């Protein structure tokens, strides 16, 4: 690799888009083709045995009335009709979830990227710092975490008292129809460890020679970040953006443990999947829950497709392809 590559446009030479390059390489051929399927064999097996059946079955259930205890019976589009025309809680759950997605995804990723960049260096103690930042995510969202959150953000909790001593109004953030959702959003952002580790791994994969190259070119800190880190990190950044978005749409556990499965107070934390869960397992309307699940799938699938399309404009794959 030439280490004096000019890095403006912001793609290292090896990363310059050569979109048709690998498709025409003569080495590729039958060997690759069969190899592709061989490598995918375990995945095929898993898909066939554990995934496709349940996926298709749940699609079928979305057109049925199914209480889990008796065989389902076909009701056509009744579940969807009820959902879209007669269920105000459905729309409420959509609203709560959208707010969550729109706030959590960017904030969590920004935190994760900032800390990853901050910790991407060789200093004494860096490993310990990384682990401490990851600590909240290690906890998962358990009953213990819910208790901590309720105690810290509830009435008379550390946060409320802190505000009080600053002369601000003491607030019960958990048991409030206004603040309960922000409190859960904060919990989600606090657990930014997973995307942080993925960013770190991505940063580690950037060859140091490229930084040396731009240093020679006289680029400063921001220049290095802009012209080397960002483009080379873009596949990983794309992954994190996409997956965090999907995850946020499916957010369940934080609301489930904090409100004891109720989505309360007064539905203020009724997330989409939490409502789906209540419909399926406490109201015994699993057909309805499946209809909700497939509506979510369709929505997120469209969004995912759009994000893939948009990614062509800003994600640079060093292997020369694009997807």
């Amino acid at each position, binding site marked *: 690799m030439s280490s004096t590559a000019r890095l403006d446009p912001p793609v290292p030479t090896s*990363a310059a888009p050569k979109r048709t390059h*690998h*498709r025409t390489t003569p080495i*590729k051929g039958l060997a*690759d*083709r069969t*190899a*592709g399927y061989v*490598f*995918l064999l*375990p*995945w095929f097996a898993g*898909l066939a*045995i*554990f995934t496709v059946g*349940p*996926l298709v079955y749940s699609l079928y259930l979305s057109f049925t009335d199914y209480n889990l205890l008796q065989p389902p019976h076909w009701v056509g589009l009744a579940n969807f009709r009820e959902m879209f025309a007669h269920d105000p809680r459905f729309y409420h759950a959509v609203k709560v979830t959208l707010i969550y997605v729109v706030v959590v995804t960017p904030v969590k990723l920004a935190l994760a990227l900032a*800390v990853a960049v901050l910790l*991407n260096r*060789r*200093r004494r103690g860096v*490993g310990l710092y*990384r*682990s401490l*930042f990851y*600590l*909240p995510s290690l906890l*998962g969202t*358990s*009953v*213990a975490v819910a*208790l*901590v959150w309720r105690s810290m953000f509830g009435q008379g909790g550390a946060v409320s008292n802190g505000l009080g001593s600053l002369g601000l109004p003491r607030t019960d953030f958990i048991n409030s129809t206004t603040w309960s959702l922000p409190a859960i959003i904060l919990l989600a952002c*606090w657990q930014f460890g*997973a995307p942080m*580790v*993925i960013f770190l*791994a*991505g*940063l580690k*994969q*950037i*060859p*140091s*020679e490229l930084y040396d190259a731009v*240093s020679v070119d006289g680029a400063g800190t921001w220049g*290095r970040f802009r012209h080397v880190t960002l483009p080379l990190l873009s596949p990983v950044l794309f*992954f994190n953006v996409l997956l965090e978005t*999907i995850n946020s749409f*499916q957010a*369940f556990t934080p609301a489930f443990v904090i409100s004891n499965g109720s989505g309360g107070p007064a539905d203020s934390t009724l997330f989409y*999947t939490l409502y789906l869960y209540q419909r399926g397992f406490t109201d015994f309307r699993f057909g309805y829950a499946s209809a909700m699940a497939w509506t*979510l*799938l369709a929505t*997120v*699938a469209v969004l*995912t497709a759009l994000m893939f399309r948009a990614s062509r404009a800003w994600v640079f794959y*060093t*292997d020369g392809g694009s*997807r």
Partner: protein
Amino acid sequence: MSESDQALRGGPPALFGRHGGRGRGRSLLWHLSVIVVVLVVVYPVIWMIGTSFKPATEIVTSNRPWPLHGTLKNFSAGWDANPGVTFGHFFMNSLVISVLAVAGTLLSCSLAAYAFARLSFPGRSALFAVMVVTILLPYHVLIVPQYAIFKTFGWINTDLPVVVPKFLATEAFFIFLMVQFMRGIPKEIDDAARVDGCGPYRTFLWVLLPLTRPALITSAIFAFIWTWNDFFTQLVYFNNTDKFTVPIGLSLFVDQTGMTSYGPMMAMSILALLPVFLFFLAFQRLLVDGATSSGLKG
């Protein structure tokens, strides 16, 4: 190899200068700012540790992180809370499935990822789309049909429903993650390997896999922690007390219709955090150098 050795060797330069006499002052400033942020982030965990030493009546009425009348009772009570088995047994059960989940995920997902990232074959794009779609459906509607499948196999109350799918790459998240990393590796490296006579299999094993190490380590970390913390799957498949895992054990300290033992629950939660913390501490050390030093020099 210690961190300081590497500092001497020089890796990627820090984004904010690290040269010359200013280095020490800057370094101190860096440490100070990181420590402040760490303290804010870790405060709730400190609170948890303190709470695990609080007697029952102090837990919801007091907000200070440390107990007034410290006690070790929560640990012994939590350890022996369940009939016939100790919490240690739950730890072993969790450890076994988590370690197996790591092995299964690394093995099966790296294979699939290589195919998607590097090999061309008919139907690749369509299959990739299918793979992404499997991430999109909420888990709660899949659990019922999946339970029926495992029931037919006679796998209920064994490790198999939790472990076998991991060996068959059902966690598409990891495939996708590894694909993204593999695509960040210059194609020229494979081509060079091919010129040297490596087929797709040897290229995968000797070239791609070592270069994808950051992604593999990341996946190992996540696979371990997520399995360790996964309550809902384990709840459904494990029936008897001697099959219970840590998340199930923790959930049993709280019941709205019965007793709630927050103290022992906190104590066991802290203990449950230790193995994953150590696992992370150990594995993140492997996250030090990717392509830079072990891959392409030259």
